[in-house]
């Protein structure tokens, strides 16, 4: 059996699927031995992979493209299309993007967050609105931003999808999702924001490991799509129950990628232009195009 070491966030969304995978021994069934190494932050997994301590992490395609264009050989296999959304309170008077003008918006993930850039682009194109200039933008840590939204200090928040799902269960509604923005800006369907990321070199040396892992993870996701009971089992590590758990489950299921990888890759290439335009060199580096090979070549065949 081939060994696969994957680094994930403890209690992060990826660990739910991996827990199911382990629980039902899908790894052994597919001829691999999966070792899950937990970290406290997403950055920790990046560092760990650079340090060679693990084979695989979960991150987004833009990061992969940038690393590739700078000479690295990381590549990505799609994992989830779930992305962030702008959330407002149920009773909030904000109805469209245009209403965000002059409001206080909390943004998780910093000024170069992909969802934030897409929504900015959309606001500019459809409403001629330059959000950073016309609204009061506060960047901050995701949990803090969520808490502030509940407190009412912020009029609207853009947060990662699972924070949004929890907010939804707590009296918030979605104003606009990043996937809507992506579609409006030229994507033909949902593009995977996150994927399993690994080195080409490692994949070439261990092709069975990669394939086995992807198959096992697909089985786990199938189970999560089918079985509500499985979610009840996961409740302690999801750290949610009732309404909140249901919302998280539904959003998770919606985020499972269903399109051929080639289509996603083409859409990602298109979005890259939009992002490069608004995020500038800071975001994408000097590469004018999404780096070839960002999506694992094997999947495109």
């Amino acid at each position, binding site marked *: 059996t081939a060994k696969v070491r994957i680094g994930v966030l*403890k209690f992060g969304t990826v660990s739910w699927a991996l827990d199911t995978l382990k629980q039902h021994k899908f790894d052994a069934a597919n001829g691999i031995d999966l070792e899950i190494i*937990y*970290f406290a932050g997403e950055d920790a997994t990046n*560092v*760990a992979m650079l340090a060679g301590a693990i084979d695989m992490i979960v991150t987004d395609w833009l990061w992969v493209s940038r690393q590739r264009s700078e000479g690295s050989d990381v590549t990505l296999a799609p994992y989830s299309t779930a992305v962030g959304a702008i959330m407002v309170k149920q009773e909030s008077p904000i109805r469209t993007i245009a209403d965000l003008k002059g409001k206080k918006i909390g943004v998780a993930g910093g000024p170069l967050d992909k969802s934030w850039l897409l929504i900015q682009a959309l606001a500019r194109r459809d409403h001629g609105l330059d959000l950073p200039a016309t609204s009061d933008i506060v960047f901050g840590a995701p*949990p803090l931003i969520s808490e502030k939204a509940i407190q009412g200090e912020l009029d609207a928040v853009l947060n990662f999808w699972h924070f949004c799902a929890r907010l939804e269960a707590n009296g918030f509604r979605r104003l606009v999702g990043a996937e809507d923005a992506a579609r409006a800006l030229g994507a033909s369907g949902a593009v995977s924001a996150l994927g399993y990321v690994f080195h080409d070199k490692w994949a070439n040396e261990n092709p069975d490991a990669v394939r086995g892992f992807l198959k096992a993870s697909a089985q786990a996701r199938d189970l999560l799509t089918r079985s509500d009971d499985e979610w009840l089992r996961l409740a302690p590590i999801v750290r949610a129950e009732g309404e909140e758990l249901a919302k998280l489950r539904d959003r998770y299921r919606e985020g499972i990628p269903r399109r051929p990888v080639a289509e996603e890759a083409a859409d990602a290439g298109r979005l890259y232009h939009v992002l490069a335009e608004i995020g500038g060199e800071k975001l994408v580096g000097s590469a004018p195009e999404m780096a070839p090979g960002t999506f694992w070549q094997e999947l495109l065949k």
Partner: protein
Amino acid sequence: MTTPDTGDRMRGAAADMSGQPSPATALIPVLTVALSLFGLCLLWAFAANAWQSRAFPGPGKVWQVLLREAASGDLFYHLGATLSRVAAAYVVAMVIGSVIGVLLGSYRGADRFFSPWVILFLNIPALVVIVLAYIWFGLNEAAAIGAVAVNKIPNVVVTMREGARALDPSYAEMAAVYRFGPLDRIRHVLLPQLQPYLAAASRSGIALIWKIVLVVELLGRSNGVGVQIYVNFQLFDVAAILAYTLAFVAVMLVIELLLVQPVEQHATRWRRRPA
């Protein structure tokens, strides 16, 4: 020129200066600490009541979490991992930092040359050092502890350098005349003069190290209080964060009260107590 008796009369305040300290006197420190902690809890409970918020649980709530984590064994596992990292990094940082600091404080030329380096290392963010250490030396304990030590060493250097600069040369001269050996010089001449600086560097040092260990754990370890705190931050479970924090603080408090303070009192018993 004399004034009527407006009396500059003074009375001594000697009560019972003689005799052994009574058992009641010996109890005072223990009682003070108990009172102090009790006061703190009271204040906390009061504040938590006033600003009721999920972000600021009261002592009762935190205590429950603490018990739960202790019962599951998680608390001791993570606390143990963190404590051993803190201890290792502390020893490394204090030894290396003190030696460098005293040397820089003693040799003006060396100090002039290296002082920009000290400023540089003092101000490099922990993040940078930790990431570089992990990348170069791998994701292992040695890299983690080394990174913490490198972060802390410049602080120790800066404090001990001031201590070395403030040394009274007459003691060193006396030691030179009477041909004290190098060990005697360090033990009987140098260290007692540096004691307040060592105490300051140690106390704020261990606190700083623990804070950096949290970051180190966050960036590349799978166990330890840092991981727990950050994970609970993602879930915004402030009670759990406080529970882990307080567990560490409790350990520090016990060390301080049972070890550091008695040692310190013994080391400074020669000081003339201000009347």
